[in-house]
């Protein structure tokens, strides 16, 4: 199916449309962040009477209230959008690329290449995700790049497995056999014949990878290993937890978590719609 057909079917499905809508909303928010953010997220604010605006509930001046350090929550959440999308999209692209290539090469060439890559994947599968990321970030330092690196290092395995399985079935199909018989080069078969057929499947998993990456980054930040220079949603929650604000300042706790949930959910919706596009049996009759 062409990309256009896929897109059209995606929009027709309500959830798919919602997913894409939410994604676009956040992307636009991120792009416009410095323009629409009411305050600098790192500056302490003061009330009209000159006192420190500490843990103020939502008001007209501060739509989502303030933190214990008097910072505007809404501005922080808007700033966090950039980090989330940066992590999510970069990871998604890299994970898809690496996972697809490995899965493709492994399945296409088979033999010892396949064995080696799959043993490698198996070992990676055995590693507990979050602890490993923590250790890696502890070793390399809590910069956002290291976090993304750790995420990519562990996440490619799922895509690789799935793509490999798909290519294995495609390999036996007649159009590939025919291409081989007519003397098509490996490159041609891979790029011209196989790639377009596995692209939709890759897209399904890339939306999942995006969500996964955002959740992981938030978790890492929550545990205290986040990039100290970046205002990520996870970091906002870390600050809130440390300030023991759970009980007192719901406006500090709810919005960042909700933002994470919405963005990750959009990834799920898009991937589910893509899946229904690919597997007609799952479509509602």
């Amino acid at each position: 199916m062409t990309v256009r057909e896929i897109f059209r079917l995606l929009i027709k499905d309500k959830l798919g449309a919602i997913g894409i809508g939410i994604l676009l909303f956040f992307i636009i928010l991120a792009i416009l962040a410095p323009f629409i953010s009411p305050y600098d997220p790192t500056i302490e604010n003061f009330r009209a009477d000159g006192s420190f605006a500490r843990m103020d509930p939502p008001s007209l001046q501060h739509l989502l209230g303030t933190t214990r350090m008097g910072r505007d929550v809404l501005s922080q959440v808007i700033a966090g959008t950039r980090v989330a999308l940066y992590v999510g999209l970069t990871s998604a692209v890299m994970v898809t690329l690496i996972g697809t290539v490995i899965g493709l090469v492994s399945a296409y060439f088979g033999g010892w290449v396949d064995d080696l890559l799959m043993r490698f994947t198996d070992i990676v599968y055995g590693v507990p995700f979050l602890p490993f990321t923590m250790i890696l970030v502890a070793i390399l330092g809590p910069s956002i790049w290291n976090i993304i690196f750790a995420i990519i290092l562990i996440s490619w395995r799922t895509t690789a497995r799935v793509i490999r399985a798909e290519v294995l079935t495609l390999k036996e199909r007649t159009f590939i056999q025919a291409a081989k018989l007519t003397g098509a080069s490996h490159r041609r078969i891979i790029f011209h014949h196989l790639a377009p057929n596995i692209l939709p499947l890759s897209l399904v998993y890339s939306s999942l990878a995006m969500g996964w990456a955002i959740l992981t980054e938030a978790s890492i930040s929550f545990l205290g290993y986040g990039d100290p220079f970046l205002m990520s949603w996870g970091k906002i929650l870390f600050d809130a937890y440390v300030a023991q604000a759970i009980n007192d300042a719901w406006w500090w706790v709810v919005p960042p978590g909700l933002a994470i949930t919405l963005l990750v959910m959009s990834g799920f919706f898009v991937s589910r719609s893509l899946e229904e596009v690919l597997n007609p049996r799952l479509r509602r009759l």
Partner: protein
Amino acid sequence: MRAFIIRRLIQMILTMVVLMTILFFMFRVLPGDPTTSLLDAALPVEAQNAVLHQFGLDKPLSEQYKIYMVNLAHGEFGISFNTREPVSNVIMDKLWNTLFLMGFSVGLALLIGIFGGAIVAWYRGTTFEAVAVSVVLFFRSSPVFWIGMMALSVFSYKLGWFPIGGMHEPGQNLVTFRERYLNLEFLHHLILPGLVGASYYIANPLLIMRSSTIEVMEDDFIEMARAKGLSERTILFRHAMRNSMLPVVTQVALLIGFAIGGQVLVETVFNWPGIGREIVTAIQLNDYPVAQATFFMMGVLVIVLNFLTDLVYGVLDPRVTYK
């Protein structure tokens, strides 16, 4: 069958060896000098060296590696840099704490996921399905620690239904297994973190069960069951579900890996004294014997549970024989 088990055991050990080797080298690269937590700078140099010697930190890397591997094989985890206690003491109790919590969460997630997924597939196309799927996806998309924070806020602080974290009321000296686990107080503390964890883990089993059941319902033997005059409920639970749960079981391995990560977060938010929370503190304090040991335990847990899942699958699916 026996050959299969032996082969898998060898595989498992090999994986653990590779894992721990990688870990060994990674940990030696950890920033922060472990010696600072071990040593009192006021001590004379000889005393300092003596401590270093005691912990084997003055030997060349290759020797440290050999000692490390041998110790590991004997279950010797060394001494905590931080508390100076044998690591095994520190870890073993915590392991049980984690097992109980994780077992509860994962068990609940699987139970509701499997039955729920089958029922959702049955009510395909209805609002019930849409709502159920959306709810499940919501929890899957939410950071589990955020859900935990809000659960604590609502159910513990505001409503007072559940204790505010921890595994027991503080200040008790509980020694025996029964005192610690087999009582209502423990259960009371277990429920909220258990439910929060379960809500996070339930999405995959439920959704996989749903699509698997949808596919199975198209199979010929389902129509045959109908032709035999069986009720729809019998068909769903005795025939459809029994077949469609097989793909879920194959995914339990992934679920467990996922759950270990989740445990780290849940234990942190709820102050649950398990190995999840332990590894966070250990890394922070550069206590690498403890960090290594916890990581090792986690790896073993994942690998052993994977193996057990494969065995269970072999029982559930008569078409599969292990040779």
